[in-house]
């Protein structure tokens, strides 16, 4: 979807550039079709040719695998092993648009992309590239539980009670989410998983969210030692 939007932006940019060339050639005599002499027409055709086939290669080479549209939507072309795109690969990749375009409107390209894991079109397959989404990610601040878990609460849990790996991540995600929830809803959600964990560790609890928070704190603390 992003690639479709990026393509639309690139199409508009090319159209605008071509219109600019046409305008500068006619010297502002907004003439569509008439008033163009042979030499002007020749120059216009050469620019249309260069834009149609050279635009993506020029952009991707100058902007490290991005075109203007791709930059707008945070996309970048890279090799499947993470290397940056090279000039000759960009040439082949973009000329093969003609193969992806067949029979019309990139139909074959869409089909190939839909069948592949990382939405690679024929041009991507040929030179081993893929289009990635670059997202600025954020690291969340450490989780704070209110009121803080006391040592007394921790000591009430059985010795072996400890969350690991995906359990820990899931509980941590829940505790972050829960901070904005009404208390009854918080309990309702925590009750889905708390009985299972309590049975597993042979523990008892009164307040399910607090139980999960204590388990979480204990697991992190013991992970450290």
């Amino acid at each position, binding site marked *: 979807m992003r690639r479709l939007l990026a393509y639309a932006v690139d199409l508009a940019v090319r159209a605008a550039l071509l219109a600019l060339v046409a305008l500068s050639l006619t010297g502002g005599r907004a003439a569509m*079709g008439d008033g163009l002499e042979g030499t002007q027409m020749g120059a216009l055709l050469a620019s249309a040719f260069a834009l149609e086939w050279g635009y993506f290669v020029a952009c991707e080479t100058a902007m490290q695998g991005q075109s203007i549209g791709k930059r707008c939507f945070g996309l970048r072309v890279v090799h499947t092993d993470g290397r940056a795109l090279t000039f000759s690969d960009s040439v082949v990749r973009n000329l093969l648009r003609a193969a992806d375009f067949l029979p019309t409107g990139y139909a074959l390209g869409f089909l190939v992309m839909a069948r592949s894991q990382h939405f690679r079109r024929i041009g991507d397959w040929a030179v081993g590239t893929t289009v990635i989404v670059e997202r600025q990610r954020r690291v969340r601040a450490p989780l704070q539980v209110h009121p803080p878990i006391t040592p007394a609460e921790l000591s009430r849990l059985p010795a072996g009670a400890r969350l690991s790996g995906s359990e820990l991540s899931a509980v941590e995600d829940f505790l972050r989410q829960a901070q904005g929830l009404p208390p009854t809803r918080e309990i309702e959600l925590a009750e889905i998983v708390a009985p299972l964990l309590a049975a597993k560790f042979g523990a008892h609890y009164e307040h399910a969210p607090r139980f999960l928070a204590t388990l979480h704190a204990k697991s992190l603390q013991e992970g450290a030692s």
Partner: protein
Amino acid sequence: MNARDDFVTERRPAWERLNALLTGVSLRKLSGSELSELCEGYRQACNDLERARSVGCTADVVEYLEDLSGRAYQAIYRPKPAKLRAAGRILFLEFPFALRSNLRFFLAAAVVMVGPAVAGLAATWLDPTFASRVLPPGLLDLLANSYVQGFDEPRAATEDAAMAGFYVRNNTSIAFRCFATGIFAGIGSVFFLAYNGLVIGTTVGYVARVGALHNLLAFMSGHGPLELTAVIIAGAAGIKMGSVIIDSGGRSPFHQLREQSAEITRLVLGAAFLLLLAALVEGFWSASDAKIETKLTASFVGSLALLGFLLLGGRNLRGAPWT
């Protein structure tokens, strides 16, 4: 606090510093010490990523570090920037050299295109109805009219523009399609070469029948040799691509294709270069009102120059100069 959160809190300023170096000004504007800081930061970020995975940091931290180290890797190990001199070397030396190393593909493409062209020419000459079976009647009328009219009295600018626009867009697309469809085991290249050969032969035959051959020759002689050579070279690159896919020597077809992509790129860039020249000739010269003798002489000299360039360009290169 605990060790996992301490680790994130402690390392975080270093990650943010690396992020700032990467997202700020272009790398070329960084000072020497900032560059070494960048490289050091990259290595640290890779270490931290491994550590974050093993101590069980949550997905947000792991994904943040994956993105950060990935971007740092791309920034540090980027390919050499393209230079104008390198472009000259590719077009004037490596392209003719690559073409001569792949002569068999060129000859195969030439036969596939010229064969149907000759057949189309002969068939149109022998059978008056043949042309209407290959090309739509509307286009035939247009062709006949425009060439019978000739270039002695300048055509209206709109008509001129329409014709030239039609040819340039059509022909460059044809050439690149001849290349690109070679990815389908070469079949597409062979099909489009043969089809376009047939269309060209039929067109010439038809225009000759209506008695306007001299006008057609005058128009085509300028850019024709450039354009046809370019189409055949593009088709040859497509056939080469198909043959690499078919006979990949026991490796994955796309892996083998990647090995050959530099050489194939030389061929296609050369074809694009010739097409650009052809477009310029077509726009500035082909439809001009110069005499037919002048145009044919220019075409002959131009073709000789093209032949000489393709035969002699880059003759001092050895091996595979693009690796």
